């Protein structure tokens, strides 16, 4: 048992106890959920500190017959995402304090289980375990949307479920193919990702596997044209659901591409780089344009997510260091900024029972504090320097620019479109003649201010010190990061084939102990290899 297990067990235990507490009354369920979220936050912070500069591994036997192990691992990227999950979890519980009034216990149980699934996805290195976590995320989210959602909740919940589930079937097929291919080559069944990496796959196989895994992850991201579940799910989900969805759930798709697809099938990735870039760029503009003409607050923000996530995947697919770092930054920042916008949408809906821009307008006089927050998050969303979003988008644009100058030019226009819809969010809500419908709405209270302000602080800190986010990417050895030296070359491009070359394809390198481990008692992968 290492920190990884504790982090994983915390929400599970929390779910059980919260479920029991929910039988007493709502408040105790909230308190219990909050307690376990805070414990998770503390543990995640400890993980961040522990992992610094290396990797933390934990491995137990699970299903030996299948070759499945309980293999958790956290490097810098993983620890970062775990921390993000924990932060978002705390805020989610905080913001639903008055938002959720029915079946309070059950709600928090589902939220905690959702955390479990997400954490499992971020930490698992065994593909069966990963897939388990991947599917585990679906069910709680389905119920969170379907039970505590708004007017059209069932439709959205089912749509969400069907889309992501269909996607994950492709993912499963691809994983199983690799699994059996590995077994056929070595005679040993193993779901361990490190083992699967050693599988020799032909170009055609790699392309197929890429497509399968890519569809599975792209639905979750979501990339155009798999995105249509997102606006519905976001719009109908309760505030906490939207927050978690935007904050971390979408990131699992990107994380999957980053962590599993790129190392596993470099040839496939190289073959479909153009496709990935095209879909990302389409997504950027498509989401932004669609967002601009929405009349529903949350729907607008949901479409903006598609646009932002387009930047993330673009950063991945351009295949250089700045694109990659930008992608990770944008992942984190999008979670915080869009999460903030969803919080505000939720606060507004809680007070006004509507999300329609036509009903809002001129609310600044009544809610100056919230106006300031909304202004900040809108500015963050359009990527104003000083917030993390700028750094992320800028890195991605720089990466695209390095790949092809016109790609950078096209992408940068996305920033203009981001400005269009972000300003619209703010102006349509806060500016204009004072709303006739709403008088004397209460401004944000302390609890909401805490939730929003913590997001603001994180965004600003990342905006000024982006290395807090990008430095961990290099902790576990820069396996995942495209080689820095190539793209730092002032003029000249890394060759396409080289860009995704990973040690995985080289059996000699594969055996090399690449990671350091700190905690005693953990299974020492590197150490074993050395012995």
């Amino acid at each position: 048992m290492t920190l990884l297990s504790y982090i994983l067990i915390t929400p599970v235990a929390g779910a059980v106890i919260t479920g029991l507490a929910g039988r007493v009354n709502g408040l105790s369920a909230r308190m219990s959920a909050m307690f376990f979220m805070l414990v998770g936050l503390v543990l995640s912070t400890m993980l961040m500190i522990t992992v610094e500069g290396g990797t933390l591994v934990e491995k137990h036997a699970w299903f030996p017959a299948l070759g499945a192990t309980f293999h958790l691992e956290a490097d810098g990227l993983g620890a970062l995402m775990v921390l993000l999950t924990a932060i978002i979890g705390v805020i989610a519980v905080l913001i639903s304090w008055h938002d959720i009034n029915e079946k309070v216990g059950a709600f928090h149980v589902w939220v905690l289980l959702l955390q479990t699934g997400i954490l499992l996805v971020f930490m698992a290195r065994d593909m069966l375990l990963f897939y388990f976590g991947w599917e585990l995320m679906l069910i709680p989210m389905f119920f969170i949307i379907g039970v505590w959602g708004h007017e059209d909740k069932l439709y959205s919940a089912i749509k969400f479920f069907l889309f992501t589930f269909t996607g994950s079937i492709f993912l499963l097929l691809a994983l199983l193919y690799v699994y059996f291919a590995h077994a056929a080559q070595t005679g040993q069944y193993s779901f361990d990702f490190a083992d699967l990496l050693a599988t020799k796959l032909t170009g055609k196989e790699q392309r197929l596997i890429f497509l399968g895994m890519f569809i599975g992850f792209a639905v979750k991201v979501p990339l155009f044209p798999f995105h249509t579940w997102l606006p519905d799910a976001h719009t109908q989900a309760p505030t906490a659901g939207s927050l978690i969805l935007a904050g971390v759930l979408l990131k699992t798709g990107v994380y999957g591409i980053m962590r599993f697809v790129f190392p596993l099938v470099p040839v496939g990735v190289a073959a479909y780089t153009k496709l990935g870039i095209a879909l990302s760029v389409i997504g950027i503009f498509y989401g932004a344009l669609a967002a601009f003409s929405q009349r529903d607050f949350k729907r607008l923000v949901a479409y903006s997510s598609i646009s932002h996530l387009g930047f993330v995947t673009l950063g991945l697919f351009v295949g250089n260091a700045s694109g990659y770092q930008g992608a990770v930054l944008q992942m984190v920042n999008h979670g915080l900024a869009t999460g903030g916008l969803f919080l505000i949408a939720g606060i507004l809906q809680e007070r006004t029972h509507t999300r329609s821009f036509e009903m809002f307008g001129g609310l600044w006089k009544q809610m100056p504090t919230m106006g300031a927050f909304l202004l900040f998050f809108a500015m963050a969303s359009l990527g104003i320097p000083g917030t993390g979003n700028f750094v992320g988008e800028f890195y991605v644009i720089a990466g695209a620019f390095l790949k092809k100058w016109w790609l950078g030019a096209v992408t940068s226009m996305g920033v203009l479109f981001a400005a269009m819809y972000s300003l619209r969010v703010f102006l349509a809500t806060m500016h204009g003649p004072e709303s006739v419908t709403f008088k004397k709405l209460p401004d944000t209270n302390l609890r909401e201010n805490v939730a929003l302000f913590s997001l603001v602080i994180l965004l600003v800190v990342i905006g000024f010190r982006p290395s807090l986010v990008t430095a961990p990417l290099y902790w576990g050895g820069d396996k995942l990061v495209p080689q820095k030296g190539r793209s730092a070359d002032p003029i000249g491009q890394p060759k396409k084939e080289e860009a995704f070359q990973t040690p995985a394809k080289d059996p000699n390198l594969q055996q090399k102990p690449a990671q350091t481990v700190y905690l005693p008692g953990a299974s020492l992968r590197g150490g074993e290899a050395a012995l």
Partner: protein
Amino acid sequence: MFVHNGIPALWVIPALPALGALIIFLFSKAMSPQTAGRIACGAVGLCFGWVAFCSSSLLGLPSADAHNAPYFHQELWTWLSAGIVQSKVAFLFDRVSMVFTIIVSGVGFLIHLYSYAYMDDDEGERRYFGYLNLFVASMLILVTADNAFFMFMGWEGVGACSFFLIGHYYSKSENCAAATKAFLVTRLGDIFLILGLLLCAKLVGVSFLNLSGFESVKEMEVVKGGWGMSGHALLTIAALLLLAGAAGKSAQLPLQTWLPDAMAGPTPVSALIHAATMVTAGVYLIARFHILFVASGTGMTAVAIVGAATAFYAATCACVQTDIKRILAYSTISQIGYMVLGLGVGAFSLGLFHFFTHAFYKACLFLASGTVIHSLHHEQNIYNMGGLKSKLKGTFAAFLLGSAALAGFPGTSGFFSKDAILWSALTTGFGNPVFYGVGLVTAFLTAVYSFRLIFVVFYGAPRKDIHVHHPSPLLVWPLLVLAFFAVTIGVLNLPGFVGFKSLAWEHFFHPIFGEFQAEPKEGWTHAHEAIFALIGAAVALGGILVSYTLFGPNAKMLPEPAGNIGDVENSTPKPYKSALANFLFHGWGMDQLYAAVFVRPVKRLSMINAWVDKVVVDGVYELIGAIVRAFHSLVVSFQNGRVGRYAMVMLFGVVAVTILVMSIIPR
């Protein structure tokens, strides 16, 4: 902590107003509006003091030689580091930064004081001061950053603050539209700037201390690595991209349309942001990247053309406006056009000098107009004013001095700075007589419209019965301070023929611009310069005279209005009888053009896109869903609880299996 090895801490400069903004935002509910105002003024005042200290420290350093000016440089931490994007949070305080910081904090301080009185009865005063402080902080980051990426942080920050402050009177939707327009248009420029900076970063990096690398890029014949362009072409592209960025921020053609609308904000904001400081960021940028522009050559020509064209364009528009602030806004565009023209003909230090003088007289004019507006209860149409000379004496004095400087009245600062630019436009290697001619015509128009203001607003009889309430002293004496500088500051760079302390400013900047500063070509002497100065003075005086005959107390108003001129608003389609005047009134119809070419298509595209998403993309999935549902209803119809249906399904199965078996089993 604040002074280390004789180097004052540069981070304090932007940190002070930022701290002020932070305090105001955090505790705004707990403090009175007056307290917020005091904190804001205090923060900027302290900042100005610190800037003065930094400046005196810098000036106190011995100048090493003519080519290396002393500067302070301070690195805090690494901000961006990925591939070509390398940037530190680091500050550079050289002579260019010094001039800009003095203006930003000094003029900013006066405008803060003025705002304290001006915004007294406004419900959003705390918010106003918070954003004003934030603006000053951003602007100071812009002008003290040591690399272009960090500068971009300030660059965007001032844009955002400009957006907040233009939309300060948020309950009017046209103010929101103006704010949005300002933000989007400048952001369009910013995108070009980003691309230009990325290109620069790829070529040599964007640290201001290392820009001399552009010279060597020029030598590269064909750049390697698939870019397939000569170094010179790349430089030109980069220069043009930066120019586009500068044009967006500085309201130059063709991105100038936002500035007249930006006058929707409070008048002190117009004075600070849209006259003195933010809009001159483009000038700063071009001055910083002068090596790139000179290396490109074509870039310089483009800059000069943009500057001259903008100067002329805005001056013509300013002549027919009826809104006092709009006149000043067009005048600002025009004057920045002069600065850009100055930069474009290679007279970098003169461009900066015009910025310096313009900051004073234009801030003075804006604040004075603010006092007028404030005294007349937010009346902005000049044709509803008149005869204010005796009622607002101090304001009139300030306005008159500011207008004189704007018009280039001989002896005022505007005369010296403008004349020097015109001289350079004629005589330097990048200049030519066309630029000079355009500049001269513009100077004439400038004199006409600036004194049109004086004559219409302050002379004659009151045109409308508005009670004039007496402005508080805080609304007057900052004007007088600014007016004093507006008149006298020209002594810093007296023309070469004067002899006494002449060209002090140019010498001061010589180490910065060095050989890139274009000097008059052979054959142009001080005697020529004196003659052209006389021509300039004559043009200015002639313009004032023409203005008197056209708009003076006894003149018939020109151009002839179509209706009651006092009712004209900025959106009035045809305020004048003359088509030309209407054309000029609407800024040569560029707003309408952009609305037709960009705004409406994008909006329509957005609607179409939303429709496509709902109907086509989602429709595909709905279709899949419908197919599945059709299967579902088919299957459900088998399970309807009727035995007969079950039997039939069974029968179907039997038939199907039999057919299958029969087709599989060979005969």
